[in-house]
Structure formats: structure tokens, C-alpha cells
């Protein structure tokens, strides 16, 4: 069964460092998303991406964040200068179109120290 895969599963980084979280969405999907979940809190939307550009972003997704689809398969989230409060689970999701189900990856646990 097709699935969304994310790497790494766990990343520890020092405050101020750049991190890149990687995702391989399901191959025929067209809409891609990043969400995050701070420990004990709800899953929050960060950004949606369609047709090689950001279609919508939340207030959380400030200038420190960027997304890219560098080739036909990968979808990355970059945090330029990590802060302690960026520590969270980051989930990638993809959909075939806006009206179908969203499938989530297993997540990357980011720990900023």
C-alpha cells in the first residue's frame, strides 16, 4: 500500500542551526502539507503546497520556514535558525486532490537543545 515516508525519524539539533526535514509523498498525489504537533498539543497546519508553490501558510510558518519540492518525489521543510520552541513532531501529508483523504507520514521528532 502506498505511504508517505519521512526522514529522519528523530533529529536533535542545536539552537540556531538549520534543519531540513524530508518527505516522500505518495507518488500520484498533487497536494502536499506540513503539520506540526508540539508534545501534548493538537496537530497544527503549517503550509500547503500545490503546483510547485505555496498555496497557503499559517501564522506559524514565518520567514524561518521554507518548503521545496526539489525533484519529482521529495518534499522538504527547512527551518533556517531553529529555536527551542520549534521542538515538535513534524508531519508531512499528501492528497490526490483537495477533496480526497489526506495521508500522513510517521513524522520527524525534532528536538532543539
Amino acid at each position, binding site marked *: 500500500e502506498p505511504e508517505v515516508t519521512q526522514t529522519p525519524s528523530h533529529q536533535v539539533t542545536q539552537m540556531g542551526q538549520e534543519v531540513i526535514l524530508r518527505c516522500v509523498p505518495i507518488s500520484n498525489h498533487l497536494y502536499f502539507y506540513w503539520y506540526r504537533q508540539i508534545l501534548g498539543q*493538537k496537530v497544527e497546519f503549517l503550509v500547503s503546497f500545490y503546483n510547485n508553490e505555496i498555496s497557503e501558510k499559517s501564522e506559524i510558518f514565518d520567514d524561518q520556514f521554507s518548503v521545496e519540492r526539489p525533484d519529482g518525489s521529495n518534499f522538504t521543510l527547512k527551518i533556517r535558525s531553529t529555536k527551542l520552541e520549534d521542538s515538535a513532531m513534524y508531519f508531512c501529508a499528501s492528497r490526490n486532490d483537495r*477533496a480526497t483523504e489526506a495521508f*500522513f507520514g510517521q513524522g520527524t521528532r525534532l528536538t532543539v537543545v
Partner: protein
Amino acid sequence: TQLLEQSPQFLSIQEGENLTVYCNSSSVFSSLQWYRQEPGEGPVLLVTVVTGGEVKKLKRLTFQFGDARKDSSLHITAAQPGDTGLYLCAGDGSWGKLQFGAGTQVVVTP
């Protein structure tokens, strides 16, 4: 922002009992999805409800979408320990983004 309120926050029951989890909003959603999440893992899709009044069954799980498409419920019949998990509802927004509720933690003890 469309808010989704889930209740109760926590539910602990014995194996064999029934339970219902609620998801409510003041906003109308085009569709609503239910997920289950295990600790340290991503949400796993259970079902999508689209039509007002729709009822969907998934083995012992019954999902209902309110007539006005503002609320939904998940009913589990004869719960088993394997049903333990965090149940999340999420409403569809623009560009297919999902607005999640805070979840209901269900614990089923043998």
C-alpha cells in the same frame, strides 16, 4: 479559524463497553475526517464523512456526520484493548488543509 471541539478529552472504559466521542464546531465543513494516532506516530485515517447525515461503519466503529455538517460522532461498540489510542477529528479547509481537534484519548482496559 474554524475551531473543532472534541469531547470528552479522556475516556477510560472496560473491554466490552461502548463509547462515543464527539466532534463539534460552529462552522460548516465540506468534509470531516477521523484519525487515530498512537504515541510517537502519525495520524492514521479511519474514515471521511462528506454528506450531512451520513453514517459510515468500519467494523465496530460507527461514524456519523451531522445534518448541518458542523458536528460528527464516533461510536465504538464492544470496545477492545486494541481500540486504545488518540482519536482525532479534522475538518477540511481551503486548499485541502485540515483543522484538527485536540483529540480524545481512549483507554480500554481488559
